[in-house]
């Protein structure tokens, strides 16, 4: 003999409980297989339950009128023949039953009840910072890009949220990602993973200037919460002034020089752009002089020669100095003074055809301006679409000290300056 407990089965079509109407056996009674033991009332019918085993009643659960849930014990029997006689999977153990439409769900053995753990998702590619300063018409917090572009960005180690999208509705295109990889040194020099199966590998030691660049970029990227904001400016007047001054001076005056000079003017209006962050003192040092670094591509890598006191100089002078400094840097003749002491930086990504940049701040500075390529674009002037030379101004700023609104005001002012023949004309020319 062995004790077995019979649990209330689902008597049909997903019932959950039944009310005991009348016990037909009492503790101590001996019962036969299929002998009626109890009448129960389900939501659908009065049902007579037959004993699943022959044996002696040890215990009945619930009195007449009590409600028993499906799967809960109904009766315990001392079963004739014990383990051997009792069927292997007769309702002896509490069974988990699941409501089904026509029937019962025999038992849930073998059915998974294990709750699988989900892997928490990684951070979304859109950084929170872009929320305050959305790049162009992109929706806040979302980067629009086709799946293969996302894949490419991942392979190249490019953070999509840092790439300005040139596609429809600000969608990041394959070209945008490629450009970001080509122009953002930190990013371009550090692909996430080597492309497997691409043939023989070449290992290039990172040393010298490259190493310094790498360290500086990495530090800036790690420490500074970068945000980049973009404005498209009509460059008609910049071009006109450049040509005018070139003729006047008899030497080439570039649009870069005009804009660097204008930027220095802007920094006077927005002193927080022209500042150093003193980490140890935790102070922002607003600097009087506008020493503008010019990010320059050399065979060694990126170097930043500095045009000193730009605010004190005329455009033609700035133009000439830029040519000299860049030449010196490329021929490795630049002196340490020429390569240090900048208060703010300009990078001319347009040189290589880029429309936009998301430049990395040259710490301890707190802002950097990227100038895109100047080319004819469809602009709306007086309600008419016209082709005008235009330039995109990309301003990366340290979001710890400069808010999006301030940065956008600064860029709006810069755009206003560049677009206004009157105000542009007031800049010192010589």
């Amino acid at each position, binding site marked *: 003999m062995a004790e077995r407990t*019979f*649990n209330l*089965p*689902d*008597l*049909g*079509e997903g019932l959950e409980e039944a009310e005991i109407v009348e016990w037909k056996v009492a503790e101590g009674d001996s019962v036969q297989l*299929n002998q009626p033991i109890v009448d129960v009332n389900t939501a*659908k*019918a*009065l*049902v*007579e*339950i*037959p004993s*699943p085993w022959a044996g002696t009643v040890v215990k009945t659960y619930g009195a007449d009128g009590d409600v028993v849930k499906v799967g809960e014990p109904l009766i315990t029997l001392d079963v004739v023949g014990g383990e051997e006689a009792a*069927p*292997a*999977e*007769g*309702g002896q153990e509490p*069974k988990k*039953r699941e409501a*089904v439409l*026509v*029937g*019962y*769900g*025999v038992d849930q*053995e*073998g059915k*998974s009840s*294990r709750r699988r753990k989900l892997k928490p998702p990684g951070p979304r590619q859109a950084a929170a910072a872009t929320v305050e300063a959305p790049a162009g018409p992109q929706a806040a917090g979302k980067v629009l890009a086709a799946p293969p572009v996302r894949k490419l960005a991942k392979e190249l180690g490019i953070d999509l949220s840092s790439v300005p999208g040139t596609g429809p509705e600000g969608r990041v295109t394959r070209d945008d990602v490629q450009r970001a990889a080509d122009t953002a040194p930190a990013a371009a020099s550090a692909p996430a993973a080597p492309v497997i199966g691409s043939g023989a590998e070449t290992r290039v030691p990172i040393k010298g200037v490259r190493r310094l660049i790498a360290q500086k970029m990495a530090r800036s990227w790690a420490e500074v919460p970068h945000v980049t904001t973009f404005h498209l400016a009509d460059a008609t007047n910049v071009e006109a002034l450049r040509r005018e001054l070139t003729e006047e001076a008899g030497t080439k005056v570039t649009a870069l020089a005009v804009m660097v000079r204008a930027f220095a003017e802007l920094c006077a209006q927005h002193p927080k752009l022209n500042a150093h962050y003193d980490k140890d003192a935790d102070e922002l040092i607003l600097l009087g002089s506008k020493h503008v670094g010019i990010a320059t591509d050399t065979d060694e890598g990126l170097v930043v020669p500095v045009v000193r006191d730009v605010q004190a100089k005329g455009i033609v002078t700035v133009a000439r100095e830029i040519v000299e400094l860049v030449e010196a840097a490329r021929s490795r003749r630049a002196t340490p003074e020429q390569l240090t002491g900048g208060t703010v930086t300009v990078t001319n990504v347009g040189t290589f055809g880029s429309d936009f940049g998301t430049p990395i701040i040259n710490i301890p500075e707190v802002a950097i301006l990227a100038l895109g390529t100047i080319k004819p674009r469809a602009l709306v002037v007086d309600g008419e679409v016209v082709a005008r030379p235009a330039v995109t101004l990309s301003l990366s700023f340290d979001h710890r000290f400069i808010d999006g609104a301030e940065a956008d005001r600064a860029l709006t002012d810069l755009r206003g300056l560049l677009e206004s023949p009157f105000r542009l004309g007031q800049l010192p020319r010589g």
Partner: protein
Amino acid sequence: MADETVRILAPDGRVDEEDRRGLDLKDEDLRQLFRYMVLARNVDLECTALQRQGELAVYPPAIGQEAAQIGSAYALGERDMVYPSYREVGVAISRGLDMVEYMKFHRGTWHGGVNDPVGSGFGMFSVPVGSQPLHGTGHALGTKLDGKDVVTITYFGDGATSQGDVHEAMNVAGVFGAPIVFFCQNNHWAISVPLEKQTAGQIYRKAEGYGFPGVRVDGNDVLAVYRVTREAVERARAEHQPTLIEAVTYRIGPHSTADDATRYRTKEDVEAWQQLDPIERFRMFLETAGIADQSVFLEAEAEGKDLAATVRAGIQGAPPRDVEDLFRWIFAELPPVLVRQRDEVLRLAEEDRDG
């Protein structure tokens, strides 16, 4: 019942001797008929209990319909083919089906109830009411095209006669002269809807419209059912003519174990039909005629208990089905889309096993 109803055995066990002598049944056959009826009753009761004990999902008892089922099935030849509905436990037993496999349908272990329909001469359960007579007609047509000496019988209920498929089947069978017997067990109830709400006419007379004979028989009289089915089978075999048989009987139990018949019919109704119980009626005849005695009855009862115990032990002891079976028989060859799905299920099942 009207005069047209064929009956040999009266409810009190008396027989029309002339009719009985016309039957090609030996005493041994009569005892066998009795035995099958008792087996069916026992299996029905056991399976109802098994459902109450949580071992079957649902069960549709055929209590009260044993004479209709066993009398008709006994009239078939060995190679004849059956297309049942889902309440033909008596037919299944007398055709020698494996009743453990059969009940796996009701346990939810697998569909269909029959392992090898063509091989065992017994089509799978057909739950969509009235859909199977078309399969029977097709099969009958097929065997006729081959010139085979095979008759097909299809079972359905009074409710099914409201279904278009049943009429399409009879129509096609009439047009092509298919060797088939349409066997309708009029048990008076389609779940809760009574016969008079299924048809304003008489079931057996619908055959006339299809151009073949229709017969009404007392479905609780195993001898009469045997006789009319035997005649229909012979007619199908020899003349390729279909027959519609309406066996008037009664569903003593609920539609299924999930049903509560007290909601729509009276106790008196049921009790009146219990007085016409087909097994008791036949037992009285066998005893009075000296064909069987108490020992035969007790032996049949014991055999019934054995079969019930076999079913109980069989379904409880059946190993769980291989998860891979889910995908094994969808197509002869599993297409790539399903290969993926199967691999996922197997992987998840394996992960579950490994914890």
